[in-house]
């Protein structure tokens, strides 16, 4: 007999599973619908870190009734129409790298595993567009582009374990975002199946003045407003040159100031990262010139002459703020270790709660957000570490990425809630936004009213209008609760 626990109980009233299964099989055939325990359990969780604690303790968040693998937009539309008619919840699933529980099938129903939709549909080399299906793995996408002489410019830490559809659904950011933008900048066109089963195709155009842009509404919907099935993304020729630089500063203040001025002068390094003193010590212990300091790493890439200019101007501003040049090696070290998240596994196995909280704020507030957020998290009993780095920057501000490690003094969930409340409170008090690129999912749902104010009601009315039966990824994005 199975003995796993589920954190979220499925609703008592559900559609007749045999009838649903028969209809699903009629759409996708018998081999692409499964009720096998192993398949359903495999999509019972994503990479919301607390689910790792739960899993080691014998529990999974929630289990769907069916896993369905569609192979086309039309199949997705047919499945969603069926689900809408029978009021069966639908949760889209890419590769489960989301860190906020967004892919947890809270109310059971159908999990739509999108990985069979992984084709490249077209390459427009003149316009620099590529059109792909949403279930394509990020690393395979980038490798395909590289082989054709291009880059997608979107390299999130999850690139090896995430999909294009997941990026769009969560408004993802890659590590090279200062040059290439977040996914909302990269995305040019989008195909979405709405919760009532219509197919909305937003064509790829450079810009338009045609009323509200549907793709911008659906972007970041986390599966609550429909299923992303295809996307047209902007691409770039592979860079001809790349320059790696790093500078150490006395504290994050002058480092932030240097970066602000670099961007103000129109320079767009691809990678800009500023590590606070704690994270510099943890991540770059061999950089003696950065000991006890904040480290800035820069990676400029593109046309050779432009890169040389970017490097020269960046150096001017960094040195003017007291930066000490630390050379290429710290950047090489970052490049070599940037996908290694093993430390969190070590700590979770020891019973720690580990998480990452990425927020954003304008330049006028970002330093205060860093100070207040880490102090507030440290003030919660049980917190061992709350340290940060600035991982993405813009002409008007930056993303702060805070890493948390704590040992709950009492119950795990109570500690987890308290530390998140402290962190989000500090951000909101200072005018920042509660998420830069991980999204909302389950974990951030309770902060949506504070984030959006009364506008959250507008979002709820949109949800009600496009998903009258509330079938699409129910319980996420704070659309149901305050």
């Amino acid at each position: 007999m199975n003995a796993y626990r589920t954190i979220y109980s499925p609703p008592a009233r559900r559609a007749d599973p045999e009838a649903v299964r028969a209809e699903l099989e009629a759409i996708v055939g018998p081999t692409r619908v499964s009720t096998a325990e192993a398949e359903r359990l495999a999509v019972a969780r994503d990479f919301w870190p607390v689910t790792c604690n739960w899993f080691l303790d014998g529990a999974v968040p929630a289990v769907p009734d069916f896993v369905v693998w569609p192979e086309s937009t039309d199949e997705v539309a047919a499945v969603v129409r069926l689900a809408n008619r029978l009021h069966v919840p639908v949760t889209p699933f890419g590769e489960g790298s989301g860190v906020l529980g967004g892919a947890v099938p809270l109310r059971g129903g159908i999990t739509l595993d999108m990985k069979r939709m992984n084709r490249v549909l077209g390459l427009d080399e003149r316009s620099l567009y590529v059109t792909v299906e949403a279930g394509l793995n990020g690393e395979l996408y980038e490798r395909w582009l590289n082989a054709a002489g291009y880059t997608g410019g979107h390299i999130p830490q999850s690139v090896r374990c995430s999909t294009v559809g997941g990026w769009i659904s969560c408004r993802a950011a890659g590590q090279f975002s200062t040059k290439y933008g977040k996914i909302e900048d990269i995305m040019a066109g989008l195909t979405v199946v709405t919760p009532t089963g219509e197919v909305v195709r937003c064509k790829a155009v450079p810009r338009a003045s045609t009323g509200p842009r549907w793709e911008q509404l659906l972007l970041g919907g986390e599966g609550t407003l429909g299923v992303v099935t295809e996307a047209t993304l902007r691409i770039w020729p592979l860079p001809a040159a790349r320059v790696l630089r790093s500078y150490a500063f006395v504290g994050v203040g002058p480092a932030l100031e240097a970066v602000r001025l670099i961007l103000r002068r129109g320079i767009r390094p691809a990678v800009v990262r500023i590590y606070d003193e704690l994270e510099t010590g943890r991540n770059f212990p061999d950089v003696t010139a950065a000991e006890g300091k904040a480290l800035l790493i820069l990676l400029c890439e593109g046309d050779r002459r432009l890169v040389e200019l970017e490097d020269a101007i960046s150096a001017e501003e960094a040195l003017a703020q007291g930066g000490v040049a630390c050379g290429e090696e710290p950047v090489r070290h970052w490049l070599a270790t940037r996908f290694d998240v093993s430390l969190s596994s070590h700590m979770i196995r020891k019973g720690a709660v580990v998480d990452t909280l990425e927020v954003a704020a304008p330049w006028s507030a970002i330093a205060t957000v860093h100070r207040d957020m880490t102090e507030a998290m440290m003030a919660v009993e049980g917190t061992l570490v709350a340290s940060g780095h600035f991982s993405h920057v813009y002409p008007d501000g930056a993303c702060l990425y805070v890493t948390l490690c704590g040992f709950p003094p009492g119950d795990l969930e109570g500690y987890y809630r308290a530390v998140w409340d402290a962190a989000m409170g500090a951000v909101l008090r200072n005018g920042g936004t509660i998420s830069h690129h991980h999204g909302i999912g389950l974990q951030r749902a309770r902060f949506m009213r504070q984030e959006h104010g009364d506008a959250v009601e507008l979002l709820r009315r949109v949800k009600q209008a496009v998903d009258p039966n509330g079938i699409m990824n129910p319980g996420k994005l704070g659309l149901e609760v305050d």
Partner: protein
Amino acid sequence: MAEEGRLLSGERVAALSKAIEYCAICPNMCRFDCPVARAERSESAAPAGKVRLAYMLARGMLARSPDVAGYLYRCADCRGCEAWCPFPEVKVADIMAAARADALAAGTAPEAALAVCDSLRKYGHPFAAAAPEPLSLAAAVGPTGDAAGGPASDRVLFLPGCTAAALRPATSRAIAGALTAAGVDWRTLPRQLCCGSPARAAGDPALEAELAGRLAAAIADCGADVVVTACPGCAEALTMRYPELGLAVGARVVHFAAYAAELLATGRLQPRAIAVPSAVYHDPCTMARRLALTDEPRAVLAAIPGLTTREARARGRETHCCGAGGLLGEVWPAAAAAIARARLGELADAGAAAIVTTCPMCEYTLAQTKTELPVFDLAEVLLAAVAGGADDD
């Protein structure tokens, strides 16, 4: 909480509990390079997906059943995931071997895995359907008896392995011919004896140990200095697995490709041009990732005048699997076939006139899959070049 991991039932899996926990709570950054995950495109087929199932079975979260046990066999033992893994102790193929052993002990192993074990017990090789009898090597391969002298007076024993003996006799004959052409006075065993690795893949460690012990004793008895294998899997078992089992063969074990590179370097083989104008070399997973033999086969090809070697995009240690490892083809044939088709497509993209490789199982699998490209063992190409050659006078 114990540092070595949580309490897991299942004797074999429990020993790996720390590695299993690391993998189970990892975001799975290796998944893009798992051939089974690429073919099946299901969460349960991703490396951590399989390990999570193993964890749930061993924790008692999930009841043991043949249905669930089948998922533990969706690993081709290609070791592609290990290149991307930050945990040196995590070896998904080893975790799956342990989980399969627990499944087999619990009576839930798939029929196809049990059939392999039956074949191994009855005939000493895993291919009962193709060859329902023990495999005699005396007639098919060449001289048997105590190992004889080779270069620098090595006493050489040639082990074709089950796959070459049963399914790719041309490979056995070509290696035998190349050794003879080099003046190596070699011997083989009278009867093919399995190295034991198919039993491990099936989930029967007792049978593996029995087969391995038998082969180790036979090698020791024949007094060989050098064992030349046709199969990377045999070489892996003899050099890496036998020490774990406490077995010693008392001889240097080398895959034919590496031995051929030595014969060429010392001038014992003098290849001439052949009719095949170009070849793409397929790195077998075990050859590249376990034995680290990626340069040697290429050196052999480079020694053949006029032969252009092309490269697949996925090559060397980042090669892609043919789909046949880990008994995937026996238990999940559709997945294995999809992987083979994908790899053939990649090899065809290299634009060569032929595929050359160094693993009889890869050869058999690729040749069985619909392809217009001929598939050769390295030894076949080498023998053609030393025995005649297109410009032979």
